[in-house]
């Protein structure tokens, strides 16, 4: 079941969607979500530009993507209808806020005739509900609530209505409203009244004849919570701080969508987290690097444009060989691009987007909850190998949520900072004397006797003294490449249930859900044999990638870019991988991958 809530960006659709998501998770359905909103905080009301939507896919089987075609559309005004109706499955359900369909709003949305009167909605099951009017009526008599305030609670009416339709429990939403508006009793009461009115309307009105029951998904036993990629990432960073015993130092500059990580982490002083909102992107990454020198787990996060600004400092971290985690929540580019839309087109920039030879490890989470583990992995590599690490998330992962089987924290990897404590060559301390993994010692200011200076100028290996010697620079350049190549990464795992697949679908990042979903569907419904694999480490690549690629007749690589991973695979392994590219600001959908698979297996 795929439900899409759509309205003006001021209508509170994201809130409605996220509350519905939590209630859905509570009843044990598996789910995935896709918030879809404009960059403008309040685009002109009533226009298609200002439409904000939230989609949730839930079912009793495991869900991997937010769904392709909504079965149910909740549209608060004509603009929401005109921009979203095209995606609704034929025969699907459309629930409309009738009060939003004024002549004025119809004109702003671009309708020449009233879709409620003409044939626009033929073939859909349509419910016209005067949500604004009913909300205003339900809140009459609450002291301190104007009719304008009341009308703004109509999103809670919609939430109540849909909660009834899908048998969601009301307690979590009621408890949430009570807590959220604890200090504003009038608003609290208005929202509660609106929510209850919507729920009761669903129950009593004859308009809605069918209620849907979705059985809980079969899931491995354990404790679950609902989590989106941003929360999971924040939790992962906190976990890395605790597991390493290092102070988590997070500096960033506000940018959509990465600001959410700052918001999430800034609440956790009680868990030892220090956050700084820096004066700009460059300051943020420098503060994190300075903190790393001082013995902290230095982390910064940004999105595309911020990565451009940080690149010089990331190069400095490569030269200084200090641990640093740089998170790029990718968004559609170039330049400002589409700040709220997803894309995965920063892969080559992460790998190569710095001057000079400046290799570093790159890690990409595959699902919202995987952001937790990927954050720990990035921190582990950074600390153990004394290197900046780029974590490539994206807008889709950051905003999507899914049920997360909470890990046993005692099984999380330990991270050992292994600070230098004394001289490493006779009585001397050489800051660039290396261990077997080619990592240099991390000697923190305040440690007696280990005073040293590091910087961006080329250093003599061992002593760390400035050196312009030709043979030393050649040696250091190769050494910096080698030490990243030596970072241990797990082998690429292949899922080939029949064992006879000719086609391998290889993905990275947030395409995981769509690829897995597509493979399952074609195996089940078309009897097609197809293998899948997913790259979590983009640098260094797992040692067996070449062998895996060469063991399939064809390799399909779906990407939300113009084929960046394919370039790397072709260059590294001389295998003619095939690209499926999608750059429309939306995630890769299951249907996209199914079509590409079927086109290649001769269906």
């Amino acid at each position: 079941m795929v439900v899409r809530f759509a309205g003006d960006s001021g209508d509170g659709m994201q809130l409605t969607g996220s509350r519905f998501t939590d209630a859905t998770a509570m009843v044990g359905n598996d789910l995935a979500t896709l918030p879809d909103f404009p960059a403008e905080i309040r685009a002109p009301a009533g226009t298609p530009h200002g439409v904000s939507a939230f989609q949730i896919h839930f079912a009793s089987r495991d869900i991997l993507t937010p769904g392709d075609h909504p079965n149910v559309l909740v549209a608060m005004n004509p603009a929401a209808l005109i921009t979203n109706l095209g995606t609704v499955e034929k025969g699907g359900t459309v629930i409309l806020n009738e009060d939003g369909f004024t002549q004025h709003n119809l004109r702003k949305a671009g309708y020449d005739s009233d879709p409620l009167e003409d044939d626009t909605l033929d073939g859909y099951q349509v419910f016209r509900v005067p949500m604004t009017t009913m909300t205003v009526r339900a809140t009459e008599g609450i002291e301190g609530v104007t009719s304008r305030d009341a009308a703004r609670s109509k999103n809670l009416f919609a939430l109540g209505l849909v909660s009834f339709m899908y048998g969601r429990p009301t307690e979590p939403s009621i408890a949430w409203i009570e807590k959220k508006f604890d200090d504003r009793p009038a608003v609290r009461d208005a929202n509660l009244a609106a929510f209850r009115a919507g729920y009761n309307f669903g129950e009593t009105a004859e308009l809605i004849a069918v209620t849907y029951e979705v059985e809980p998904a079969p899931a491995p036993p354990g404790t679950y919570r609902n989590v989106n990629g941003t929360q999971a990432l924040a939790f992962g960073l906190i976990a890395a701080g605790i597991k390493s015993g290092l102070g988590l130092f997070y500096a960033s500059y506000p940018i959509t969508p990465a600001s959410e990580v700052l918001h999430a982490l800034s609440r956790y002083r009680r868990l030892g987290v220090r956050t700084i909102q820096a004066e700009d992107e460059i300051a943020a990454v420098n503060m994190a690097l300075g903190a790393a020198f001082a013995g902290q787990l230095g982390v910064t996060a940004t999105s595309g444009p911020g990565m451009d600004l940080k690149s010089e400092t990331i190069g400095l971290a490569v030269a200084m060989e200090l641990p640093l985690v740089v998170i790029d929540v990718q968004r559609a580019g170039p330049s400002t691009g589409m700040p709220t839309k997803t894309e995965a087109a920063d892969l080559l920039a992460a790998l190569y987007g710095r001057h000079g030879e400046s290799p570093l490890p790159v890690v990409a989470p595959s699902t919202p909850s995987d952001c937790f583990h990927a954050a720990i992995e990035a921190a582990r590599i950074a600390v153990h190998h004394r290197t900046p690490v780029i974590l490539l998330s994206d807008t889709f992962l950051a905003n999507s949520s899914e049920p997360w089987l909470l890990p046993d924290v005692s099984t999380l990897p330990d991270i050992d900072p292994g600070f230098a404590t004394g001289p490493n060559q006779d009585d001397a301390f050489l800051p660039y004397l290396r261990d077997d993994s080619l990592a240099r010692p991390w000697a923190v200011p305040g440690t007696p006797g280990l005073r040293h200076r590091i910087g961006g100028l080329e250093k003599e290996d061992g002593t760390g003294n400035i050196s312009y010697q030709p043979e030393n620079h050649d040696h250091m350049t190769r050494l910096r490449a080698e030490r990243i190549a030596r970072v241990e990464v797990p082998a690429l795992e292949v899922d080939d249930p029949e064992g006879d697949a000719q086609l391998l679908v290889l993905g990275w990042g947030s395409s995981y859900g769509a690829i897995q979903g597509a493979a399952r569907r074609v195996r089940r419904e078309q009897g097609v044999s197809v293998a899948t694999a997913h790259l979590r480490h983009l640098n260094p690549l797992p040692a067996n990638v070449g062998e895996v690629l060469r063991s399939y007749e064809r390799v399909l690589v779906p990407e939300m870019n113009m084929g960046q991973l394919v370039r790397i695979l072709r260059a590294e392994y001389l295998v003619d991988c095939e690209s499926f590219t999608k750059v429309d600001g939306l995630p890769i959908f299951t249907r996209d991958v199914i079509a590409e698979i079927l086109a290649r297996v001769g269906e």
Partner: protein
Amino acid sequence: MSGNGNGHVDGLGFGQPGEEAVSETAVPAVAPLTKADFSSDQETRWCPGCGDYAILASVQSFMPELGIPPDRIVFVTGIGCAGRFVYYMDTYGMHGIHGRAPALATGVATSRPDLSVWVVSGDGDALSIGGNHLIHALRRNVPLKILLFNNQIYGLTKGQYSPTSEEGKVTKSTPFGSQDHPFNPVSLALGAEATFVARTVDTDKAHMAETLRAAAAHRGAAFVEIYQNCNVFNDGAFDAVRAKGRRELNQIRLEHGKQVRFGPEGERGVARGEGGRLELVDVAEAGEDALLVHDAHRLEPSLAFELSHLAARPTGPTPIGVFRDVQRPVYGEELALELEETRASLGTEELDRLLHSGETWTVS
């Protein structure tokens, strides 16, 4: 050392590996620090005759006074001739990229209030490419000592005009003379509401030591402009306040609580003239009572700003010394202590509780 006013905090659990043995037992036996303890084994590579040599010698000589072991001192620099400073100090050091030293240093200082953190920068590094970081470090009042070596020229890139070069300056990049209006670094720092702003001269060892002492004692960000002669690309830019025979006439030494007067016999001074503006006067004419008394502790910055504008350029009588020295909460200090205490007690239990916060459900 706690409470010695050196702008750093110690003995609060920020200890690093191996430190305890030294600080608890070895310190009493250690001989007093000397200049040699702060001098690294690296060969200094500035041009012969550069003002940076004098500054380096002064700083190395001054450091023992702090009473802080070199292991707890961090120098952070950017790019430019001044950037090399870090390699010559036998302390911990970071040589960052162009303009970003205040941001790097903010990361060091806010996470480790037990360290004494010094930034060395130049007029191009701090006022051009890194202007933003400088003003933000100052307005936040990050506990940093920022030394700006102002030579009014780009030296390392061989002689382009800088943001402090005078209008009309002919350089390699301005063959017809610069059209840019220059920054007055002291005015800029005051505009950013820095809590400590001072100026000194590279070769005036005693005045520099006095100024560094005051900067070190200040809690929070301290900004010190140092007039530094570049004898290759901009020789003599500060002769009015630096050269023997002229400095005696032109240095206006600001001292808190004292009349602002100058000249070999103190025969000249600063007084408020008609229209309320500060003016240079002959004491004999204006009278002792008319002379301005300097107040560096005035929270309201307009007097300091007026003083910074007494001389548009350092070509005549020019104030040096401490313009402003006021107290404001030090950025991040309390939080750092709180976090350090919190972290000591964190473990997997707290992590587990975090993951289970909010709404959860169980599948059996």
